[in-house]
């Protein structure tokens, strides 16, 4: 007789419909399920109740500057690649009140914002996005100061990861070693096969989440099929990013002609930074009442492509698109390493897909590497 719950690091198989039991269990233990769902012609991340909210039978095609959903005949819940949103919006919300202040006779009273930090269960986290969470962990928790807002959300998260069986044309995770297989940092990791899910147990919490779900140990045959599926995805990856000469290559080419060339195409719209799962920049807004006696301070996502991002008295440090694109790319693929010991890119390809003019950072890096004869 098998035990009620599988041991950690074991692989089991469950019938597809049984995933609903896992969902119910998670919800019953207080988690809000966040998962992929179809909305406005895209697969977005939002609160889901069950299997019926997942994009069953949908897939996406992605190219630089292009994203389209398509129906497929395969009855797959996770037969698509990453959409425009990432888990960043739940751990590092786009708007977050920091505190409120009241002023009475010149005296200030500061009150911490009392907003809830729900326990999220992330359903369907891809390997690249899981690495992105690891990168933001370093940004918000790895330094001298820790962001308590991020920490509260992060500590509670349950991660149900999914191995990619299909790569988008803009994916390049294999170049960075961030995918397509999920290797760690999850509670449960699924590989979707036609009739079953192969489930790897990553933690005690993951094991516990399978309580009440009918499961069997995975056979070598199941595991082989799961491995093959992920290998197929890896084989589909066409884009590559060479990183062995970074960050130095970028630092050596701060005056490269390519920056002018890409600046002529870049709209400085900031889409790439908003869809990027690691971009973390924020600004702060104060909303005061008309008398000026109270104010709410809110942190909102910002972007280094915004003109005023670098404003100091007397003007902007980076007034040109050339300088802003250079800042973004040299940070993401260069100085990020000096700052956090890791690159800021996970190869998810979102910045390529969601760039309105289809700028491809892997191409830009290649072009910057080319010697220019003056």
């Amino acid at each position, binding site marked *: 007789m098998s035990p009620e719950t599988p041991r950690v690091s074991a692989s089991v198989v469950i019938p597809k419909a049984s995933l609903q039991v896992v969902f119910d269990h998670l919800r019953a233990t207080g988690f809000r399920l966040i998962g992929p769902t179809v909305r406005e012609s895209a697969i977005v991340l939002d609160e889901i109740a069950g299997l019926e909210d997942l994009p069953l039978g949908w897939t996406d095609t992605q190219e630089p500057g292009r994203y389209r959903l398509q129906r497929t005949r395969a009855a797959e819940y996770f037969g698509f690649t990453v959409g425009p949103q990432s888990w960043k919006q739940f751990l590092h919300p786009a708007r977050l009140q920091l505190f409120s202040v009241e002023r009475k006779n010149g005296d200030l009273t500061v009150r911490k914002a009392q907003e809830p930090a729900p326990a999220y269960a992330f359903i369907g986290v891809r390997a690249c996005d899981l690495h992105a969470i690891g990168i933001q962990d370093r940004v918000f928790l790895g330094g001298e100061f820790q962001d308590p807002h991020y920490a509260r959300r992060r500590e509670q998260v349950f991660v149900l990861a999914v191995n990619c069986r299909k790569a988008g044309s803009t994916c390049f995770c294999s170049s960075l070693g961030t995918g397509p297989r999920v290797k760690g940092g999850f509670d449960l990791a699924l590989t979707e096969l036609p009739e079953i899910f192969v489930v790897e147990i990553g933690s005690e919490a993951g094991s516990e989440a399978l309580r009440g779900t009918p499961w069997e140990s995975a056979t070598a045959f199941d595991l082989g099929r799961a491995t093959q599926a992920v290998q197929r995805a890896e084989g589909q990856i066409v884009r590559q990013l060479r990183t062995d000469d970074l960050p130095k290559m970028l630092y050596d080419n701060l005056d490269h002609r390519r920056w002018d060339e890409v600046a002529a195409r870049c709209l400085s719209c900031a889409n790439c930074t908003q869809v990027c799962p690691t971009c973390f920049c924020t*600004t702060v807004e104060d909303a005061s009442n008309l008398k000026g006696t109270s104010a709410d301070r809110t942190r909102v996502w910002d972007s280094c492509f915004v003109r005023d991002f670098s404003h100091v008295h007397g003007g902007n440090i980076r007034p040109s698109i050339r*300088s802003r694109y250079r800042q973004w790319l040299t940070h993401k693929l260069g100085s990020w390493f000096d700052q956090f010991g890791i690159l800021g890119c996970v190869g998810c390809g979102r910045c390529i897909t969601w760039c309105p003019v289809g700028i491809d950072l892997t191409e830009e890096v290649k072009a910057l590497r080319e010697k220019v004869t003056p």
Partner: protein
Amino acid sequence: MSVGLPMPEPQRMLASQRSPDPMLPSPALIEAIKPVAYGISTFTLRFVDPAERAEYRFQPGQFNMLYLPGAGEIAISVSSDPDEPQLLGHTVRQAGNVTRTLARLKVGHQVGVRGPYGNPWPLDKVAGKSLVIVAGGIGLAPLRPLILSILHHRAAYGRVVLLYGARTPADLLYTDEFARWQEGNVEVHVTVDLGDEHWKGQVGVVPQLFYRIRVEPKETCVMTCGPEIMMRFVIYEALARRIPKDAIYLSMERNMKCAVGFCGHCQFGPTFICKQGPVLNYARIEPFFGKEDF
């Protein structure tokens, strides 16, 4: 496949120690407001909470974030004596929304303060050396705690020279203190870009003051704060005198929203000005310093 840089696996996060919220300001009382130059005043602040006041320490070159409800928050270096950390001087020029709002406040009003932040002037590394302190305009403010600290421990340093300049005589800071600094054996050389009818001193840009002194390059450290264009030429003059790159320290400024490395605004190449800066060693940032629009 080419994996050049390490990409460690994401870790399941352990319940972290709940650290205090670094974005929360604490109320501080405006004890005094002293005009120090045209459009520039020194605001002396004192934390309202006695425990916070007793705990607070800063080092020369560090800064605080001053918060004015409804207006915003700005990074201002502490310009007062580090040996008296209960009273915190902030020399502020009216330049933007927050500083103009601050200028309208009166003694007895409160502002929000959090800090201190940033990397200070390397007093330990420069002990025993001769120091050339070079400031332009309000750039003297973050250097004042350094000068006061040197005066307290004057014997620990060799020759100390201050080269200071501003646009006009009315823009010079702390002129009433120069005599005292000179008595304490800190040489003060002053220049202005544009004199007025009473000005009898030197006219010209700050880096030219280097021609008034002689330095022993191996024994000298340069510490400078001012407009970047000024610091560029200060570095030029220092290097021309064979002062090593790693003996030059400069204090930089960038837009700053959080001061704790979360907001991303103050990045300067590999550094965050709020963490590795504002005081940076020139040898470390040489490839980036002076790069156009960087």
